[in-house]
């Protein structure tokens, strides 16, 4: 990846606009590529299996044309869009897919994906929704089942040593991405929200070492940038599940705001918490994905009181709002999403209690609604100005 030195953002642009192109190349060289859905998929294990983990994304500007023949329209619009993309052949180069049990929209359509795509390798990772000790133990068991199926598929054992190496590699990847995030704390960030979105998307389409190299070169490039004049633009944070396109970010930054932070499932949720390197690596992995990763589908009601539960669920959001001096939060939730949808009133009042304003948008995974979304965002910015 030497060609990257100095022109990281150019490479990012390439991998963002031609998503998965690098994985395709490596596939041609004989590497195995495993697609995965959701931030719940333990990429460490895929890496340890010698395969390339490729995050499945949708295509917001494409209409869903083929999925509806097999999948109800009451299913999460993001899931439908990705499935549609797969039916259209956009993921034909994959050797297999892992669908973690994030929500009903994935759990209840697991059969539909498997039946219609029928890839050489398929696994539904039955992640629990609860985070107590029995759940951690259960999580380890199902991770071992997952490891077993990968070993069967690749024909080679996944040793604890290779898992530990993978854990370290992905922790390093997370560390680098956090370093890039830190560059957005400045009054005038050196990297725009649009650039950041492209980095996040590009990074999830590469083998971990290449991903780290790319982030590294982006950091180098961004460092050398001329610091822009400290413009008094409102600082925005976006919260949601998988937003993997710049369209919405362009709507925000195009209206004269700066997107300085996110709590998205391809962003901060992926990179904030490391896996503890434990003697039994599976234990560390289970703990990271079940407890450290903050998703509305892992029900952390560890606390005895409602306040404690709130802290466990949303505490990290307040931290980000303070660290990144956030003025306004865009809460972008997909229609038909029970896990996020039921959180909205509590999350909204929690965020407002930090002094930040909230714009709640319930929308499709589609640019078709962009004109209306833009008006809301502009009005929101006029309001908090």
């Amino acid at each position: 990846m030497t060609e990257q030195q100095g022109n990281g953002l150019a490479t990012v642009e390439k991998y963002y606009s031609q998503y998965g192109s690098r994985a395709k190349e490596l596939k041609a060289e004989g590497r195995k590529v495993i697609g995965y859905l959701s931030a719940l998929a333990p990429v460490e294990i895929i890496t340890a299996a010698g395969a390339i983990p490729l995050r499945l994304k949708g295509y917001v500007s494409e209409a869903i044309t083929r999925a509806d023949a097999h999948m109800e329209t009451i299913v999460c619009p993001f899931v439908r869009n990705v499935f549609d993309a797969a039916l259209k052949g956009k993921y034909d180069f994959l050797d297999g897919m892992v669908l973690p049990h994030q929500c009903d929209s994935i759990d209840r359509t697991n059969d539909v994906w498997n039946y219609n795509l029928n890839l050489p390798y398929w696994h539904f990772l039955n992640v629990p929704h609860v985070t107590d000790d029995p759940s951690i133990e259960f999580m380890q068991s199902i991770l071992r089942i997952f490891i077993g199926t990968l070993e069967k598929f690749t024909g080679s054992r996944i040793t604890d040593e290779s898992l530990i190496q993978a854990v370290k590699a992905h922790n390093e990847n997370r560390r680098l991405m956090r370093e890039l995030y830190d560059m957005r704390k400045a009054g005038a960030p050196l990297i725009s929200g649009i650039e950041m979105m492209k980095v996040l998307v590009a990074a999830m389409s590469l083998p971990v070492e290449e991903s780290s190299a790319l982030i590294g070169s982006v950091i180098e490039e961004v460092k050398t940038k001329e610091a822009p004049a400290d413009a008094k633009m409102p600082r925005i944070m976006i919260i949601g599940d998988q937003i993997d396109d710049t369209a919405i970010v362009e709507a925000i930054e195009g209206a004269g705001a700066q997107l300085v932070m996110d709590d998205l499932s391809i962003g901060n949720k992926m990179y904030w918490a490391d896996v503890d390197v434990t003697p039994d690596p599976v234990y560390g992995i289970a703990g990271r994905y079940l407890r450290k990763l903050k998703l509305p589908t892992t029900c952390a009601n560890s606390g005895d009181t409602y306040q404690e539960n709130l802290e466990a669920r949303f505490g990290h959001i307040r931290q980000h709002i303070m660290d990144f001096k956030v003025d306004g939060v865009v809460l972008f939730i997909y229609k038909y999403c029970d896990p996020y949808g039921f959180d909205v009133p509590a999350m909204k009042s929690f965020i407002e209690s930090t002094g930040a304003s909230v714009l709640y948008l319930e929308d499709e995974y589609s640019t078709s609604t962009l004109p209306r979304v833009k008006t809301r965002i502009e009005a929101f910015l006029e309001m908090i100005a």
Partner: protein
Amino acid sequence: MGDTLVSSVIGPSGPEHRRLANKVMEEALASASIVFDDLAYVVATGYGRINVPFADKQVTEITCHAKGLYSLLPTAKTIVDIGGQDSKGIKLNEGKVSSFVMNDKCAAGTGRFLEVIADALGVPLEKLGDISIKAEKAAIISNTCTVFAEQEVTSQLANGESVANLIAGIHEAIAVRIYSLISKLKISPDVAITGGGAKNIGLIRALEIKFGFPVLVPPEPLLTGAIGAAIVGKEICERAAGSGEILKRSAQGLQEATFFS
């Protein structure tokens, strides 16, 4: 620079925003008997605000409705704007927007809903109000989807339900949608209604029943946003005059703009 409204023009929108923008502007200038260059500043708002090339600034209809309405009805705390494409609720705090809501990706509770139904019943849009207040009993319209509500209306009509009752039923249905939208703002009086929907007495009555108190309606509801835009422009000019800075104006004159259409 005074506060008086010198001239106003209302024209139907449509696909060719740009040409229509020029047309209404020309008419407004004519009726005020001034020329484009006499204007100190031009602010565009509304769904097609980006298609007003000669505007110096674009501001959303939310902010403009707030400003405009505050100047017309200073006691209003909550604004309900029932437009063609969407309905909005705006919470006012001393004339500034403190929060707002817009209807989701569904035409239920918007002016389009009324247009579609008026079409289906063969009743002119502006007549809906007067007809519906003659209804003895509002028909039950269970579908919120515009298209299926239309089907529901036609079938009830076929089963002999009266046009007046159906229109009243439709107003009831829209009032329900709008009310639950506005409820997200924690409604506080006075409530003012603007936009095309405000011209529909039947809909106003239905909403008043939901709110439980009478609502305010400006003399020309359709103008509220434009008036607000003018006020925004005036404020910008005054701020500039105060700080002595030169206003950045759009390069596009009115004449060049017409080439776009």
